């Protein structure tokens, strides 16, 4: 057991190997830092984290080091004394901040980072109010095309080298580098080789100032107007924990949220930029029924009873010919409710797993310069491009013991053995779509098709009922990632138009009262399905709950 003294306050740091920044954090003291990041190597070059350090000997005497030291580079040991508020440490921090601001353009009013900028925050907390430099600032030209999705505002850079280290250590692609020396130093790329790897967007999050900006978000919104919500990325089965930033129900950006059980500190650009369909104007906005071959709006109050009745009739005629298709984009709660509704009609009703989009193979990082993956793996973009296949499968397994594939159902439909089909789809757009034209033609032979989806598809062109689905950003629930990690999803935006969340529609179909409340349903689910039992007691917390003993084989950093 090691005890460190932070500004005179003793803190037990246990047996963890911590540096002084982390040790001080345990005591609730912020040591300002730029270049240090827990996932990257230590370079101790920004010199923002200078503190006074000493040692308390067992006999109680105190020996302080004569100079300030960088906290990021100094390991915390038993008896280490950290002083962050002495005159010497404060002066060193002030000097460093004054240096950082010498050539900084102070263009906060037009800077994307303003409001969440560490240079602003630390200057406010630790710096001086004025600069003593009266000479011209050095203003190198910007590099708007340093990457397809990132722009470099060269003069804002404080040369912390986080981005450079990220591309070398995590993505391994090493596009970014420093050129020139001294105060003329700049971040740059090799000509013609822009920073376009699939993890490139992370350098924007890593940048403590507004030097590297996401072109997707550039000049879109002031960050203090954004509502930030905890969420889970739905783009692949890694299930990265994210922050979802939205305002007035428009999603503006996604940022990774640290989760050691899921993905670590980062997220990929596929997921980061893959949210645009949420704001798409092509989405279904109201429930529609087909009348005389044309889709016409029908209020939910009429729609839900109509569908319920139609499926009850079909089940009464021949229960085995009623089919529900549950897409792997449903939350566990939604899958549970729709399964409960359909199986409630008759136990003969068949439930199938919707198409699971697989694109290529798992993509691991770091890579070498030739794009070949190298060990140890620090980040994985999975080929399985859906967030909740495992959760939906477990529901299906519970309700009917076996998992029927989508292709089987489509074949049955082509052979005329399906009389009614409920497609709980909710698929985001993807090249080729979730259902092919040929499959759609086969499904067209089904006399009753309900398509519950986000966007038009070959099926919605002929479906008898088309229900608007809510995207993952607009609902709450639980996703189970590839490794069996249950993570909670929260409302990040209110769905547009007359869209109701899928779960709410299923509740209505079940004739259950009230509004959807994920935590209550999760409890019910946990009581009924043994696989989900660990979720009964508490909420899922920041990092989620691992439902399987097998730890994530994905490298977590």
């Amino acid at each position: 057991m090691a005890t460190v003294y932070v500004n005179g306050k003793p803190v037990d740091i246990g047996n963890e190997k911590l540096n002084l920044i982390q040790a001080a954090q345990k005591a609730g003291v912020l040591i300002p830092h730029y270049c240090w990041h827990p996932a990257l190597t230590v370079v101790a070059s920004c010199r923002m984290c200078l503190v006074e350090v000493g040692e308390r000997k067992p006999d109680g005497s105190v020996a302080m080091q004569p100079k300030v030291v960088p906290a990021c580079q100094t390991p915390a040991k038993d008896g280490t004394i950290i002083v962050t508020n002495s005159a010497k440490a404060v002066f060193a921090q002030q000097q460093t901040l004054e240096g950082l601001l010498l050539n900084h353009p102070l263009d906060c009013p037009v800077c994307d980072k303003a409001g969440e900028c560490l240079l602003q925050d630390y200057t406010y907390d630790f710096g001086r109010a004025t600069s003593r430099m009266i000479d011209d600032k050095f203003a190198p030209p910007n590099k708007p095309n340093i990457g397809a999705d990132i722009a470099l505002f060269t003069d804002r850079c404080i040369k912390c080298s986080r981005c450079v280290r990220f591309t070398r250590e995590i993505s391994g692609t090493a596009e970014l580098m420093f050129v020139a020396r001294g105060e003329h130093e700049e971040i740059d790329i090799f000509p013609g080789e822009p920073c376009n790897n699939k993890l490139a967007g992370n350098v924007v999050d890593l940048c403590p100032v507004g030097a590297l900006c996401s072109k997707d978000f550039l000049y879109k919104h002031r960050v203090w107007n954004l509502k930030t919500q905890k969420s889970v990325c739905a783009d692949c089965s890694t299930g990265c924990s994210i922050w979802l930033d939205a305002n007035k129900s428009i999603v503006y950006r996604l940022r990774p949220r640290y989760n050691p059980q899921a993905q670590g500190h980062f997220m990929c650009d596929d997921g980061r930029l893959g949210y645009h369909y949420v704001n798409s104007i092509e989405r279904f906005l109201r429930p529609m029924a087909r009348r005389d071959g044309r889709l016409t709006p029908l209020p939910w109050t009429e729609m839900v009873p109509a569908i319920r009745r139609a499926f009850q009739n079909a089940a009464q005629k021949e229960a085995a010919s009623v089919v529900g298709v549950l897409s792997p984009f449903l939350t566990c709660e939604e899958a549970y409710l729709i399964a409960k509704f359909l199986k409630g009609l008759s136990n003969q009703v068949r439930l199938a797993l919707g198409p699971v989009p697989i694109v290529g193979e798992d993509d691991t990082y770091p890579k070498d310069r030739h794009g070949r993956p190298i060990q140890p793996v620090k980040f994985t973009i999975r080929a399985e491009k859906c967030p909740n296949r495992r959760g939906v499968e477990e529901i299906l397994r519970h309700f009917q013991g076996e998992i029927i594939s989508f292709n089987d159902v489509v074949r049955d439909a082509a052979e005329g053995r399906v009389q009614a089909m409920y497609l709980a789809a909710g698929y985001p757009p993807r090249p080729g779509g979730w259902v092919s034209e040929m499959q759609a033609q086969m499904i067209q032979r089904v006399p009753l098709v309900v398509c519950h989806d986000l966007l038009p598809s070959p099926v919605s062109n002929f479906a008898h009922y088309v229900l608007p689905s809510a995207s993952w950003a607009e609902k709450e629930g639980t996703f189970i990632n590839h490794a069996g990690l249950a993570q909670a999803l929260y409302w990040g935006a209110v769905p547009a138009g007359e869209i109701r969340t899928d779960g709410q529609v299923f509740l209505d179909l079940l004739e259950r009262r009230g509004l959807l409340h994920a935590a209550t349903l999760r409890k019910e689910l946990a009581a009924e399905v043994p696989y989900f039992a660990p979720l009964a007691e508490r909420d899922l917390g920041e990092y989620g709950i691992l439902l399987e003993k097998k730890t994530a084989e994905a490298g977590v950093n």
Partner: protein
Amino acid sequence: MAEFEPVLLRRIVRKASPWLDAYRADGGYRALHKGVHEMTPAQVVEVVKASGLRGRGGAGFPTGLKWTFLPKDHPGPIYMCINADESEPCTFNNRILMEEDPHQVLEGIILSCYATRASTAYVYLRYEYGRSYRVLQQAIDELYNHNLLGRNILGKDFHLDIYLHRGAGAYICGEETGLIESLEGKRGWPRIKPPFPAVEGAFRKPTVVNNIETVACVTHIIDRGADWFKSIGVPPDPKNPRDVGSYGPKLYCISGHVNKPGCVELPLGVTLRELVDKHGGGVWKGRKAKGAIPGGISMGIMTEAEFDTPLDFAGPGKVGCLGLGTAAVTVFDEETSIVDVVYNICRFFAHESCGQCTPCREGTGWMLKIMDRMRRGQGRLEDLKILEEVGDNMGIIPGTTICGLADGAGWPVKNAIRKFRAEFEQYIRGAKKGRSLELVKTH
């Protein structure tokens, strides 16, 4: 005191041939035979340690002690890096050694590698030293042909390869960890310590970094013994327990406003005045000296009144300089403006700061901007305070940077302001606004 007989420059002053046959005829590689055949590596280290040899590169760290920091019984490989990135302004002693007597240097390298059990030595040459590169390479080829390099040197179980590596012209690559990074093919950014190079250096293996002149001294220490070496120079100051003495011959480079610039070999402890008047031929044009830089510009400035200071490892420190440095004396005469001197120094460091640590990267640039403005007649008296404060707060002495470049950048500035404050103030007050005094354009 009898006239000092040059040791390191012995063959150079009489313009002897630099090649192997001539060097051997003059008793060359006697020390190597002695070392390899009669002594164990540990004994060689002991002799060097006993000689009190201190590194000639600038910091003056005891060489034998440095060698003992290597981990014992390391399975290897251990690397030897020879620092020939002689980039301190006005320093040119390594160049003379490499170009005129390469085998003296190579013998020292081989002996040092024998002592440290290093299997590979890299000579990191500054790019500008093209001739040194060619001469050394030719000398190395000669050694390979005579089985003094390669496998089983002198029939013993001792293998060594020496590679020359040319830098790309960066001052910072003379810093030992910057040198190692550059050698590995990376950007020459000094590393954070610990781990020190002796534990984890080049290619993450134990590494010793020594200066060319240091290894040249090793040759003679093994040849003539530690006692001979200790008979030259200055014993430690009994009043200063941290002083370990300054022994041995030293190459002093004299440049600037003197009649006879050049490189002379003298025992450590010669005074600056003797160096300038006797060996440099006095200040040029019959003028008086205003001051001098005792050992490369990063060490600070001595005024004329301080010229009686002995130039040993402890001497310059007594008059407020950082240390002996490379013992490259640059004299400036009374006509020189101290503002120009400091401006030029700032220009050098702003150009050479590697840009890693904030205080140095921004501080050197800021000091240059202030000095540039001062020379354009826009100086303010408070600028002197800023210069002093900035100079005081960068470097490893206050703990704000990784390497010592920032100490060297700040030291001469605050030194000059302290010693020549009246002249600075007079310059600022008397400046005509708007005049331009470009020495050379800033980069």
